[in-house]
């Protein structure tokens, strides 16, 4: 049996490890366009800040591939799949046959169509090479503009700030972290970053990124100008674009695999084409809160999907129990924050809120018919998982609703 896995991150490595647990004899091949051993993308900001090295962002032990007898084809890009003859074509002309194939290609940075955005000195922060590039460029830079006020943008901003750069974050929407938190939570996180000395501009877009003037170029200067929709002009030497990601589905073009935004899979991680599975950022699964098919590009879901894909690939048929698509935990500076499920309250839903912005404390629970649908914890994140479990398992909270916001609420309140 030949198992081929395209993608060497959370889903891919987890699938490989799981396959090896059940199939000692089969061949496992991991193909990755990156030359590195599996590293945690989530830790790239820490790498950028110099807090972690290329070694300490690896999430598997050094002997992982040997121990699990995995063939690695790193630095090779899978460019095409022939699902009839069951072959994967690589960029360098090689072909790899498979009996079972897992697509765990993840996602790439989305680059908005802005004039001047493909000039040198403009970076994404999606993979290790990006981070290495930014780090190098930061040495010669004094000012940086970060485009996008989501997690990646703000973490990059904080990392670059800690390297000593002057940082301005520009977010098109009226609040930072618009995808993950509501306005109240965002305001607390924003104030925390402002206190550090990072400038944040919201509700303003990027009109154009202008390169250095001819005069400056003659003197070897790299300065740029970022022109905002409002007309304001920000000077900088470095631009980091963090405006979201898109799943890497290009590989599926000729296979007939059903693709919406990501690859549609069933509860056995199977795509619409036999013997091809998908997991992680590239896959679309049913969200437990909304009941709808969608992307859930977060680490824990990639791991679980990778494991489920592995199990089903070896024939240990197991159903994927739905996960919460949105679960995020973050701490930019001093204030930890966690959001799970819904973060904005729909009209006919109930909302319970404690808001103490002066203490950097905010808690919100969203309920529908006494079932938790979403939550935001800012400042105190203890026992967030207990609430997450209530959301995931759709447990009616009627019996202990009055205790939900007590400091002492926990697992024991549910079982007693």
């Amino acid at each position, binding site marked *: 049996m030949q198992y081929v896995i395209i993608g060497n991150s959370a889903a891919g490595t987890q699938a490989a490890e799981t396959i090896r647990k059940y199939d000692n004899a089969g061949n496992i091949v991991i193909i990755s366009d990156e030359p590195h051993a599996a590293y945690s993308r989530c*830790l790239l900001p820490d790498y950028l800040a110099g807090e972690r090295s290329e070694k300490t962002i690896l999430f598997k032990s050094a002997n992982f591939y040997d121990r699990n007898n995995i063939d690695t084809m790193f630095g090779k890009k899978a460019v095409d799949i022939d699902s009839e003859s069951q072959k994967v074509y690589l960029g360098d002309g090689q072909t790899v046959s498979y009996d079972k194939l897992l697509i765990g290609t993840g996602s790439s940075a989305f680059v908005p169509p802005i004039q001047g955005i493909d000039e040198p000195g403009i970076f994404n922060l999606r993979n290790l090479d990006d981070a290495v590039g930014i780090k190098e460029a930061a040495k010669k830079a004094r000012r940086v503009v970060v485009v996008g006020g989501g997690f990646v943008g703000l973490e990059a901003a904080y990392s670059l700030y800690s390297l000593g750069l002057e940082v301005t974050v520009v977010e098109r929407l009226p609040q930072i972290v618009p995808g993950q938190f509501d306005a109240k939570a965002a305001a607390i996180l924003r104030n925390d970053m402002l206190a550090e000395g990072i400038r944040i501009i919201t509700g303003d877009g990027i009109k154009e990124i202008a390169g250095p003037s001819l005069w400056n170029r003659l003197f070897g200067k790299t300065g740029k100008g970022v022109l905002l929709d409002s007309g304001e002009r920000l000077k900088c030497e470095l631009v980091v674009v963090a405006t979201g990601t898109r799943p890497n589905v290009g590989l599926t073009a000729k296979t007939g695999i059903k693709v919406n935004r990501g690859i549609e899979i069933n509860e056995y991680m199977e795509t619409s084409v036999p013997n091809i599975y998908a997991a992680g950022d590239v896959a679309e699964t049913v969200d437990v809160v909304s009941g709808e098919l969608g992307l859930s590009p977060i680490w824990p879901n990639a791991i679980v999907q990778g494991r489920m894909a592995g199990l089903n690939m070896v024939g240990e048929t197991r159903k994927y129990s739905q996960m919460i698509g949105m679960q995020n935990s973050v701490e930019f500076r001093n204030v930890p924050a966690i959001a799970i499920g819904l973060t904005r309250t729909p009209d006919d839903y109930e909302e319970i809120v404690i808001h103490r912005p002066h203490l950097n404390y905010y808690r919100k629970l969203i309920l529908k018919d006494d079932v938790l649908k979403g939550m935001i914890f800012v400042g105190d994140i203890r026992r967030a998982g207990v609430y997450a479990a209530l959301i995931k398992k759709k447990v009616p909270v009627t019996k202990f609703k009055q205790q939900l916001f007590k400091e002492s609420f926990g*697992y024991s309140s549910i079982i007693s």
Partner: protein
Amino acid sequence: MKQIFVDIDKCTGCLTCTLACAAEHSSSKDIVGAMLEKVQPRISVEAVNGKAVPLMCRHCEEPTCVDACMIGAMQKDKETGIVSNENNDQSCIGCWMCIMACPYGAIQPNEEEGIAIKCDKCNGREVPACVESCHTGALIYVDGKTFAQEKLTKTAKALTEAS
């Protein structure tokens, strides 16, 4: 594999287990030292409707905290079954993903050091410190099967006595 079980009826909420836990996880290994070092206990005793309920990590079969750990520091040891983010190749970064994932609320943030802390069953100690310190026998360290069998016998006994 031995697990820490709780006989809730026997717990009086004396909190000795929390002190023993802190002492065990301090460098001085005694209670006063633990207080000076400000060691956080990894077991908590909660008051629910006037009753004391000890709560600690269950060292799950398929731990959600391990799945959530984005640096691979949280691992379940294949031999001992202990789930811990310490003494592994990877080190905890304090991203709190495990806290978001644990349905028991058994992982605590250590904000001072910026790492998550949890029960490690005293990392190979024959009897975990909390169990050893428990005077009422509310904390029990036995094999899961033994515990289930004892509970079965107890319930059966209670039923026959009642009838």
